[in-house]
């Protein structure tokens, strides 16, 4: 054994370069801690350092994306071993997506400093360093989640994404609701993480490896036993918790209601996107799901969106309604994973993956728009109860109209981006179902659920525009920055649905090719020096 020469492995710069965005984010975490030591603790300073780092990471992601487009796939692989981290089109899309969203959330947090009542804002400003360390930490975990196929890395990444989120949920220490939300979140998360570890131990025992493509190859070769299936189920528990798929969705409404609005905004999109990205990556590595597994995912998706849509009916708090709405949308996107079929050739865009990416991109803007509007109301009135939205159409038309646009897009009505997202999802569902002649029911489930969801979205719009109050409602002066964000989201959604529809579809297609997948011999051979 060549012990002396191979004792340490320092990743070559060429391989490390593929993961510049992650490294930049780690450097930003350190900078957020270090800068206040020199320049003093100031809230805006921390936010600006974080913003700078995130934008730098975003630019680096663009650079990596250009190089990935040329070389298709690369990874960070120890000598002679399968890659620990993967850089491919899919990972680049998700990293850019998460970093873009992180930028938006940071900007929203900055606006919250001036939008909130001064006493509350001071309390938030006092702990900006901790807030951004936790936020960036969870973002880093999510970025690793979507770019790995190693079981150990998956566990670590899920934990790195979850643990800071638990602390973020209880970020406002003097709010008992926040403390309660974080407790429910951490207990739920700890139990699912422990079950995931048990599942991973069974997978490791069955196949003797931690690399999912190797496991998938062994499974395809008929080496799958009941134990391995149980292990896979354990892994799915961990992913299902991040997506808040149905048996693991209980934390979601409580955390959204109890946490501050910025944290709820972050979790509503990022946690689900990272979980779905990981799930789709695992599914891609397995080539295609076998019947039993596909039907299980289909049933979970059906249960997720149906239950969430019905539970949203009787909520009186807009944040809770939005929590159930986000669970329902996670269910829609889960359907894409259930009908995943590998594309005919690698260079051809994968229909299901492309539909999922398009949906996520649209979902980012519609969800962020609604959350930013809710934030504006909450900053002004101190709560996000539905009654605070009564007469908003007259009290603050520049807030109410774009919010209504975002809500209608969440329903999926025609001239908006949400419609196209649902349309392409339906196309993917139809073609995936036709390929295997199974799961036709999902098409019906998606259409019916869209109808169910109409009621509670329209209820908010009804409250804002049609409901008249006896007493004259006080006029609302929403924060200008918040208004700009909400209106920008509404405009983007209009563009996605009309002029930009083709461009968005092409963008999603572009990132749904060359997925790091089953024929990995090519990629693996290219990586091992």
């Amino acid at each position, binding site marked *: 054994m060549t*012990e002396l020469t*191979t*004792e*340490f*492995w320092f*990743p070559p710069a060429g391989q490390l370069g593929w993961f510049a965005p992650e490294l930049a984010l*780690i450097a930003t*975490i350190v900078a957020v*801690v270090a800068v206040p030591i020199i320049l003093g603790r100031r809230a805006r300073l921390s936010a600006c350092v974080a913003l700078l780092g995130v934008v730098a990471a975003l630019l680096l992601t663009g650079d990596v994306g250009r190089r990935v487009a040329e070389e298709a796939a690369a990874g*960070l692989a*120890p*000598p002679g*071993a399968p890659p*620990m*981290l993967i850089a491919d089109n899919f990972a680049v899309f998700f990293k850019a997506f998460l970093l873009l969203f992180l930028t938006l959330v940071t900007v929203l947090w900055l606006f919250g400093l001036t939008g909130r009542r001064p006493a509350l804002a001071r309390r938030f400003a*006092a*702990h900006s*360093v*901790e807030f951004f*360390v*936790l936020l960036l*930490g969870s973002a*880093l*975990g999510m970025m*690793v989640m979507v770019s790995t196929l*190693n079981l*150990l*890395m998956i566990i*670590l*990444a899920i*934990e*790195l994404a979850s*643990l*800071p989120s638990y*602390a973020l949920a*209880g970020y406002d*220490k*003097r709010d008992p609701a926040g403390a309660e939300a974080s407790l429910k979140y951490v207990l739920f998360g700890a139990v699912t993480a422990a079950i995931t570890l048990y599942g991973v131990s069974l997978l490791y*025992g*069955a196949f*003797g490896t931690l690399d999912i493509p190797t496991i998938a190859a062994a499974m395809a070769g008929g080496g799958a*036993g*009941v*134990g*391995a299936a*149980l292990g896979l189920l354990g892994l799915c528990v961990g992913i299902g918790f991040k997506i808040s798929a149905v048996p693991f969705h209980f934390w979601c409404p409580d955390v959204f209601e109890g946490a501050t609005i910025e944290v709820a905004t972050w979790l509503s999109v990022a946690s689900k996107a990272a979980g779905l990205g990981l799930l789709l990556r695992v599914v891609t590595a397995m080539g295609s799901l076998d019947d039993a597994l596909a039907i299980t995912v289909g049933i979970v998706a059906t249960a997720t969106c149906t239950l969430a849509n019905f539970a949203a009916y009787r909520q009186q708090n807009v944040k809770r309604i939005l929590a159930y709405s986000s669970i329902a949308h996670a269910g829609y996107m889960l359907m894409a994973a259930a009908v995943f079929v590998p594309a005919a050739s690698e260079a051809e865009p994968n229909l299901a993956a492309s539909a999922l990416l398009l949906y996520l991109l649209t979902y980012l803007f519609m969800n962020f728009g609604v959350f930013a509007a809710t934030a504006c109301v909450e900053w002004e009135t101190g709560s996000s109860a539905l009654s605070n939205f009564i007469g908003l159409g007259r009290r603050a038309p520049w807030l109410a109209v774009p919010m209504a646009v975002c809500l209608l897009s969440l329903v999926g009505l025609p001239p908006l981006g949400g419609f196209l997202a649902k349309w392409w999802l339906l196309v993917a569902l139809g073609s995936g179902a036709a390929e295997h002649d199974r799961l036709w029911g999902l098409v019906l489930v998606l259409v019916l659920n869209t109808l169910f969801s109409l009621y509670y979205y329209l209820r908010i719009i009804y409250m804002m525009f049609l409901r008249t109050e006896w007493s004259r409602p006080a006029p609302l002066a929403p924060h200008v920055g918040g208004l700009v964000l909400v209106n920008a989201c509404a405009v983007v959604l209009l563009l996605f649905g009309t002029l930009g529809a083709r461009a968005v579809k092409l963008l999603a297609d572009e990132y749904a090719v060359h997925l790091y997948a089953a024929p990995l011999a090519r990629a693996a051979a290219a990586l091992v020096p």
Partner: protein
Amino acid sequence: MRHALRWIVMAGVWSALAGTAWGAEAPVPPAESSSTILEAIAFYAMAAVALLSGLAILVSRNLVRNVVCLLAALGAVAGLYFLLAANLLGAIQLIVYAGGTLVLITFGVMLTSRPGSDRQLVRGWERIAGGVVCVTLFIGLCMVLLCTEWATVAASAEPTTVAAVGRALLTDYLVPFELASVLLLVMLIGAAYLVRRDGESGAEDDADRC
């Protein structure tokens, strides 16, 4: 009840110590050797301690007692690691888990204990339902575990050396190793933030008490 618990705990601590000594001195012999019986006895003893202290956690309502039972369980599992020739892991289990994590949890118990607060229990039928679910789960798990053909290789006699684990951490598992360090840094800051009393809020709390 109290006496039984005391015996379990003492047995756990002693078996953990014995396991440490035994594991450190004698590497696991090949299966054919005459000490197979010895290995079996050690296994059953540790297994009994782990299970009994687990059950004690289940039935006992006193949190401090639970902590001690968990200590016995962790010690027994560490003994099993030594039995499995994973010496480094056994030591880490004792030092980090039993010595660090458990102390942390003990702090949590101490900081939040209030007279009467540990008497809360679920209703009787919920306990019975929980028991039934768990027994069913166990039977199902056992069926799955016994039905699966686990590919096993003849166990090697050599215990895994610290050097081998260290080398693995710095080569094949360097990336997760570094990621774990980021995780610990972020968590350190997060946990410290959550438990710290801020200047202004601390003053207010004192005022409330007055």
